[in-house]
């Protein structure tokens, strides 16, 4: 089983009008490997995530998830196979309570979303599961608060809870620590590491903060001007002259 990559991309390309945003990207990620996608602003990271996760279909190329082709499938179908994502700009249900935020993915995962006349309150097992997820993430104390009223870092954790509630096999994290203070960043890194170890969830994240990338990624892909520039372990990437050139005009990558 371990031979089948959890995510395999073949010659993926996307353009807005004539502007080629990503071009001929091919890569494979083995299950369980904490992988990062880095690249300067405008390299096409978010577009890459959008076409992989089904926000819109790619112009060219194919996407395989755990051996199954998912190219161009609608987001909700891709999600039900076990591929979830977070967004660069926190994406939660702000007026609903934190607990309800997590109940939604749980209901959908259990295919109980179309239960019409039975009170939600009777789904006691789901409430238990929701509280489990919240305590794992460390925001159980805020369960009854409207999610939109939490502090910034906690809102990002709510989004993590939403994503993890579905017990995903692969999670795409689009800049999970963007806008976080050092303390919150530290907490997020610990959380991702712990989840990867404890549940075998594969994380594939983009990140601006090189410290974060080099401290958790086992393997790094470098995206530059829409194409894949380099692949390797953190050490290899740090030593790669092309990457240095692209990133810092010849300087060193600090971390």
């Amino acid at each position, binding site marked *: 089983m371990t031979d089948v990559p959890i995510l395999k991309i073949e010659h993926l390309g996307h353009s807005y009008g004539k502007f080629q945003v990503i071009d001929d990207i091919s890569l494979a990620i083995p299950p369980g490997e904490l992988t990062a996608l880095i690249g300067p602003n405008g390299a096409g990271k978010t577009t890459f995530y959008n076409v992989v*996760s089904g926000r819109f279909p790619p112009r060219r190329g194919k996407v395989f998830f755990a051996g199954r082709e998912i190219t161009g499938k*609608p*987001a*909700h179908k891709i*999600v*039900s196979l076990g591929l*979830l*994502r977070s967004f660069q700009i926190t*994406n*939660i*249900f*702000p*007026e*609903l309570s934190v607990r*309800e935020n997590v*109940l*939604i*993915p749980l*209901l*959908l*995962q259990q295919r*109980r*979303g*179309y*239960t*019409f*006349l*039975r*009170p*939600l*309150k009777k*789904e006691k097992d789901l409430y238990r599961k929701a509280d489990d997820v919240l305590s794992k993430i460390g925001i159980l104390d805020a369960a009854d608060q409207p999610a939109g009223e939490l502090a910034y870092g906690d809102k990002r954790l709510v989004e993590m809870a*939403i*994503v993890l*509630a*579905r017990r995903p096999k692969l999670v795409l994290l689009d800049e999970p620590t963007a806008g976080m203070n050092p303390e919150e960043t530290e907490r997020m890194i610990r959380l991702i590491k712990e989840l990867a170890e404890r549940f075998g969830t594969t994380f594939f994240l983009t990140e601006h903060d090189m410290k974060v990338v080099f401290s958790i990624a086992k393997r790094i892909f470098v995206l530059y001007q829409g194409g894949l520039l380099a692949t390797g372990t953190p050490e290899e990437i740090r030593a790669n002259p092309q990457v240095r050139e692209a990133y810092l005009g010849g300087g060193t990558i600090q971390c």
Partner: protein
Amino acid sequence: MKNHSGRPKTVIFFIFLIGFLIGCPFFLPTYWTFIFGEILIMALFAMSFNLLLGYSGLLSFGQAGFFGVGAYVVALLILKGWQSLTLIMLAGTISAALAAAVIGYLCVRRDEIYFAMITLGFGMMLFTIAHNWIELTGGSDGLPLAVIPALKLPGFELSLFDPRIMYLFILFVVLAGIFFLWRLVRSPFGLILTAARENKERLAFVGADVRLVRLTAFTIAGGLAGLSGALFCLFNSMATPGFMHWSYSARPILMTILGGSGVFLGPAFGAVVFFLLEQVITNVTDNWMIFLGAILIPVVIFFPQGILGTLVKHFDR
């Protein structure tokens, strides 16, 4: 959309309210019994509309179309000689739900103003059918009913031409409809609906087919609009194209904004305010809509949560 059911005070209040509503025809003059009957029907109509606006975040401008489908199906079946009131009402409701499923399929892909305009367009199409297909619908004259099947209860029959019986029948059906809605918004599907209103993208990315969620809500709302239309047809002993006109679609919108889309009973409260204003003001002048407008504007500006919404928030503190 707060939960008040757990509080004994609220329970007692609703028991008194329902008791009052049952008692109405026995101490009110017949004229007011009629007014209350109409308010109840419009309350259900507005609440079905609010399943879309308040719970799903969809502004439908074509709900009168489904209201009218319910009314016309009832009129046609009675003219055909159907005798069972239950079956007639059921057929009206199901036909409206089917119409909503078909039209909704074409509408739910769009959002906001586009959704509103498409539903408006389809509502007007239904109106035009009712208005111009004279052989079936009687055109602008509508379909007047000379007879209405009696309400058959075990052991005896009641004539709906008795205003009190008609009122109690309406009250029963409307309360059943409201109870259905109440259960619906508290169900798992109710939470998914709210999630679709809050953030449809996030909902899609936790695995829900947002279009299907919306279509389901649209179909249910259409069915309940049809049920209120069916009642209205019996109440007026006729169905007319006026029921389907776009200005009739504006009524539940106005009522919902008056009462508040964020509280379960907001639209019903809005219906009460709407009709009482009409009654009070038409005693003075025929141009009552001017006064309705004069009340609506400050409500929208100063109390965007509606009258009941603002009251509930105030007393919650």
